[in-house]
């Protein structure tokens, strides 16, 4: 059992991890072909995994409905939504447009999926505004720096802000775009680079831990 559950998977991880790493340094055609084959396999695995996902989704919601668990009515919407897209897609043979005309699927996409998705993203704007109201309070020197930078960026990002800047601070001789450019390209990039470098090194070490079988929690422990 240990051989199947641990040794073989770890050997696969090691061999394919090293080979994939080598493709970065070996430009030979065999190396390119190997990478292509691996990518195709990955595509196939992902496609099959999607079915597993679908089964899990249907199983969870059908159990909820059959048990009449709390909020089972919402679970009905999973099936209604699924059918509302799948049936038109089947009728329209997976095409959104038929010439210049919307097909059934195109209609479902444009008038059901589009507004629902856009609404969810739009909610973000409301959350950002209320979060900004609560979080930009000057309680320390650092918070003050954050406040000043935020003000510059908010004003510099839109024409109305630019007009306000010109009226109030135009005498300084600086254009708001220059200030925003400096903030975005100097301190912001410096901070981001630091985080990126830390993350990349962390990623390299994590990759080594996985390739050499030191970190194997994702396989379940011994």
């Amino acid at each position, binding site marked *: 059992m240990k051989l199947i559950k641990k040794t073989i998977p770890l050997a696969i991880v090691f061999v394919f991890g090293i080979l994939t790493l080598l493709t970065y340094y070996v430009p030979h055609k065999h190396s*390119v072909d190997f*990478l*292509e084959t691996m*990518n*195709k396999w*990955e*595509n196939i695995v*992902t*496609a099959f995994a999607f079915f597993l996902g679908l089964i899990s989704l249907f199983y969870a919601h059908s159990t909820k409905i059959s048990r009449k668990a709390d909020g089972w009515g919402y679970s009905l919407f999973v099936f209604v939504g699924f059918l509302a897209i799948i049936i038109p897609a089947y009728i329209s043979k997976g095409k*959104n*447009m038929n010439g*210049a005309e919307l097909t059934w699927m*195109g209609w479902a*996409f*444009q008038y059901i*999926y*589009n*507004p629902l*998705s*856009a609404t*969810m*993203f*739009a909610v*973000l*704007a*409301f959350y*950002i*505004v*209320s979060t*900004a*109201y*609560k979080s*930009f*309070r*000057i*309680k320390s020197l650092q918070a003050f720096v954050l*406040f000043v930078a*935020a*003000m510059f960026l*908010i*004003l510099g*990002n*839109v*024409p*109305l*802000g*630019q*007009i*306000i800047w010109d009226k109030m601070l135009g005498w300084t001789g600086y*254009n*708001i*775009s220059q200030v925003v*450019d400096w903030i*975005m*390209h100097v301190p*912001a*990039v410096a901070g*981001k*680079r630091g985080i*990126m470098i830390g993350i990349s090194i962390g990623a390299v070490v994590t990759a080594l831990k996985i390739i050499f079988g030191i970190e194997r929690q994702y396989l379940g422990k011994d």
Partner: protein
Amino acid sequence: MLKDKLNAVLKIDRRWIFLALTVVLFGAIIHPLGLLSKNIARDTQNAYEFMDKIPAGSFILLDLDYDPSTAPELSPQAMAVARHAFRNNLRVGVVTYSAGATGLIEQLFAVVPGEFKKEYGKDYVILPYQPNAVAVMTQMASDLYGIYDKDKDGKDTRSMPVMKGIQNYKNISLVVCIAGTSITDIWVAYVGDKYNVPFIAGVTAISQPGYGPYLQKKQMRGLLGGMKGAAEYEHLIKTPGKGSSGIDALSLAHVMVAALIIVSNIAMVILKYL
């Protein structure tokens, strides 16, 4: 008394803020102010200039990876970039790695090519959706037809005039990716850096600040950020579109946020020192 009121201001129910934002946005949409950005961002300008210098007849790859959620911000960008490409007689190949984008791509290309009398198969091609972006990007480095031998309708791409002489990244003058997902980083890491393909991105305003390092290192030749980026690009190609019309609402919402932050700070200072 004043203190209680100020405390109430600081702890205001966030639904009042939501309501205020709704009113401001509606106001701007119903009564446009006609504001236009005076200053074009450096990164938008660079994107425009790079694209403008590509010789006519060159092939560019347009990755449109936004779904309906980010479409209000990103669709105007895609439209402006496509218009610019067709105006300069570039050949365009469209790819996508998010299923939600396919319908939006069809809608966009049902409109824009017609404005420039461009023909499908001759001047542009829409390639089918593929799920695993990294695998496809790697494959395109050697032979694009290993994945895209058929277009979205199952027609043979090799025989299309638009694909003449196109084999891999070496024949592609530019990749433009307009996306609301992490695919932009994947393009930079797996394609731009590895195969030296010039790359321009269009992203949502919320993720724009994160791309500074790529721009400095020229891993990105330009960047369009949010609706503002779209409006600026529309201004540069002298074809106002949805980006320009949304800029008023964006302006007022920004000023409202600034005002709210200032009000909350004034209230806090008064509470502290009075």
